[in-house]
């Protein structure tokens, strides 16, 4: 199965990529993918197909997994 990974902001800079494809022989949980990538930032959030999900979520073929650092929008 194949999962698309998305990186933004500091993570995009760290991986020098805004997206990557990951091939998996067996289904993995979100937290396992994060660990494989060395992502253990406190407060890191995960979105699968644009919805926030718990770290234990099992990924499906063709899912899009985004790693979201704690956000800060707006200016004021």
């Amino acid at each position: 199965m194949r999962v698309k990974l998305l990186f933004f902001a500091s993570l995009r800079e760290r991986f020098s990529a805004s997206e990557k494809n990951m091939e998996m022989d067996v289904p993995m949980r979100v937290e396992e993918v994060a660990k494989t990538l060395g992502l253990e930032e406190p407060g890191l959030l995960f979105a699968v197909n644009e919805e926030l999900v718990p770290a234990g979520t099992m990924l499906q073929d063709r899912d899009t997994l985004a790693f979201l650092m704690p956000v800060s929008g707006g200016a004021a």
Partner: protein
Amino acid sequence: MNFITTRAIVPEAFFLMKADPASGALSTFFGIVRNHHQGRAVKSLYYECYVSMANRSILRIRTDLMARYGLANLYVLHRIGHLEVGETALAVAALSAHRAEAFAACEETVERIKRETPIWKKEFFSDGSEEWVRCGHQAAAQAEHLR
């Protein structure tokens, strides 16, 4: 609906919206790039966004708040990319029959976007350094939301 733009936001445009004869209140908020952050001089900002998820997030917030406050309309526009001091990053305008709902909806829209919408901000300081803004309490609020 698209709530994200790379173009300059013109605040004046929000005051030229088509009048709604049933609405007696228009409350607006503009988030403007300021020249300081925690005592350090800021030169400019860079906003980055997960566009498709941010649009979904803002649409959800807008739908929730329009229903809760009975608004005639709720406008939201967030700019991304490189912004200079004084430029508008976020514009919100709530249109309702009475002022209480317009004030409350405008404030809650801004707070929820800051808390829920995947938009990141990098500060470029006058001393040449740069830093992505991280806010731990917001992550905690989001994590709580998932339980």
